[in-house]
């Protein structure tokens, strides 16, 4: 799997590259800013771009903008945005364009190589990954009613793990549940969130999006 990395901190970039190489990814290029990242992606057409949210020139949210730009340069590319912040609104913005294969993770989570590698693979496959730190906050929103309030605690837990990019299988392992039980929970979630029937992968993304948007679009 071909990966590019964009971060203005050389040490961090090199470190991530090394870890990814260790995990069996092919790091085909590195960029220090958003502009050279776009050039790099155009040239290398990687499967996934791992992007720091804050890069030159403005050091604000270049990573989020790049996620949109990169899709026009290289359709279908997965973008995993790394951030120093735990900000739900970043995740909402990143996923709001409804592009497949997007992820938002806090930077230090790269040190958990298994999870990190899993996240890279999930976005490469068009899935959605949201940092568990953000998911925890989002779950707090269930208190205020809305679609999420209809979920049982267990369903909410399952949805949270879905948002973190876990497969049903991974959720089974995490929650010590049988695959059948998890499938039931997932189906219930889809129903309760009133998601249209369709491919399971797409519905998962929509469920996570609903999860993220809930409370933000409401006034």
């Amino acid at each position, binding site marked *: 799997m071909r990966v590019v990395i964009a971060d203005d*901190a050389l*040490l*961090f970039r090199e*470190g*991530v590259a*090394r*870890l990814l190489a*260790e995990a069996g990814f092919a790091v085909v290029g590195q960029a220090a800013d958003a502009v050279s990242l776009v050039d790099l992606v155009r040239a290398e057409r990687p499967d996934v771009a791992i992007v720091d949210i*804050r890069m030159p020139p403005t*050091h*604000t*949210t270049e990573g989020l903008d790049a996620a949109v730009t990169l899709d026009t340069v290289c359709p279908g590319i997965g973008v995993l945005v790394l951030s*120093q*912040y*735990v*900000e*739900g*609104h970043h995740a909402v*913005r990143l996923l709001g364009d409804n592009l497949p294969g997007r992820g938002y993770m*806090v*930077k*230090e989570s*790269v*040190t958990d*190589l298994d999870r990190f590698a899993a996240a890279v693979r999930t976005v490469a496959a068009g899935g959605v990954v949201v940092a568990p730190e953000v998911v925890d*906050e*989002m779950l*707090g*929103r269930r*208190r*205020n*009613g809305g679609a999420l309030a209809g979920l049982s605690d267990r369903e909410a837990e399952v949805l949270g793990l879905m948002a973190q990019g876990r497969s049903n299988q991974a959720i089974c392992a995490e929650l010590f549940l049988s695959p059948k039980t998890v499938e039931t929970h997932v189906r219930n979630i889809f129903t309760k969130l009133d998601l249209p029937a369709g491919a399971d992968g797409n519905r998962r993304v929509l469920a996570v999006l609903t999860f993220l948007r809930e*409370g*933000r679009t409401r*006034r």
Partner: protein
Amino acid sequence: MLHTATLRHSRPAPATPLLITVQILATLFGIAAVRYGGYGLTWADTVSHTVLPLAAAWAFTCCAIVAAERRRPGESVWPMLLAAGLCMLLLLGAVRHRLAFQIAFLADWLVMGAIAHVMTDFARGSAYPRLRRALVIAGYVATGPCVVVWFVISGGLTARPRDLLAEVQVGTIDVETVDIVFAMLPTLVYVVALGLFCVRWATAGRILRRGWTTVLLGNIGMTGIYVYTGLMIMVPALRSTYGTGIAASRVGLAVWPLFLLAGMLRARAGRSVAADLAAELGHAPPPPGRLQDALARALGDPGLRLIYHRPAHGDYVDPDGRPSPMPESGPDRSVTLLAGVGAIIHDPALDESPDLMRAVAATARLLMENERLHAEVRAQLAQVRASRARIVEAGVTARRKIERDLHDGAQQRLVTLALMLRIARGQVPETDTPLAAAIDECALELRQAIGELRELARGIHPAVLTEAGLSSALVSLAERSTVPAEVTEVPQGRFPPGVEEAVYFVVSESLANAAKHAGDSARVTIAVRARTHEGRTTMTVEVADDGNGGADASRGSGLRGLADRVEALDGTLTVHSPAGHGTRVLAELPCAS
């Protein structure tokens, strides 16, 4: 000046009771003298005989009391008026006793001198001071020493006392040249005094005229009577009406003081201009220019202008703040300087009443000083507000910078460190379990440090506020809140950074407060509204919970600090927290654009 006048109003002149007592005693004595002094009059005759001189005496005394009490006009003439009143009573004593007759005769004439003095002095002013003084002296000389001389020459010292009040029949008077000369002298003084009064009346302003017109009419009448009686003495053909002339002069003496009194009271009303002005403008700082209009209206001088001194600039400006040179006093404009604050430029006619101008100037000076102080306070307040706003702004900027520095500096380094540690961990041989465990412990500690640093940075300044605005930041706050919280209303769009931050911290602090005190089952609603009224946007923040209530803004430093933060932006913070009925924190913040 104003104070003195006010004090004088509030208490009667100390001489008033004494004056009235003396007057009553003299009246009783006069009536008794007429009744029992040897004229052989009945009571009815006594009354008809004494009614005019008594009326005149009391009229003069009233004028004296009013003049003495009210100070102006005629403050200096009240002794003359009083003397005239007593002289009139003395006439009653012109009984068969020779000395009494002689005194009464002289007093009868001296009244004319006193009247001439009052006429000359009533419309005081700076005009013709020498002429006026000469006239007063001439009046007294003509009615005093001259009459004595005349009296002696014409053998009055040896003449039999006669009733001065009885009508004098033609023929009983023997007119000689010397009589004509002496009788005409006071008349001449009257004519000149009347002329002077007319000139001064004609040049006076509306306000002054108000009192003067009445007096002028009285003066014309009085002078007319004296001229007429003078002519009667001179012109033999007219002597047959001499009795009528004398009677007219007796009536005139009783009526003239009434004109004077009316004039004084009317002029008094004019003099309350200063008091009215103070009452009209004193209770509130008038907007610029209103004082000038009020003064112009009060003084009946539409051309009146105010000039303000600006000590800081050392120049003068008009009420609109335009530079205005200090004009010189001239024939058409007069300048009354108000020490330290400026000047009134007005109709020179107002100089005719220096006391009035002094009172108005004192009032105006106070009001202008007041205006100036208000303007200074406003300017200082504006400065304080501006600097406070700058401090708030600088605080926001500094906190944003610290927050960014923490993320880009320390946190970035720690994250890189965690990464390097992870790489190092990968190189640890599987056999070296203790080292692997130590590194894992380090990594865990490091992740916690990163998490804490992230929270610290967010507490200093939330990045979401800068990046995504209030709406996202408040939703994020509500999500993190340990007590269930919901944002029910929040305006989209961006607002000044200081305001956004203040709103954020009001909500954040209120949520922290609710978490501590509201109780377990409490829920919080957060509503932020932006209202624009007349181009000014005001942000209202309301954080309400349904918890225990009883929060005291004066105790908890959190709410106090919040109030300071809000007030620094010219806002207000109120906390309603009745025990058992939840807490409602309400902040209003003006958005300076």
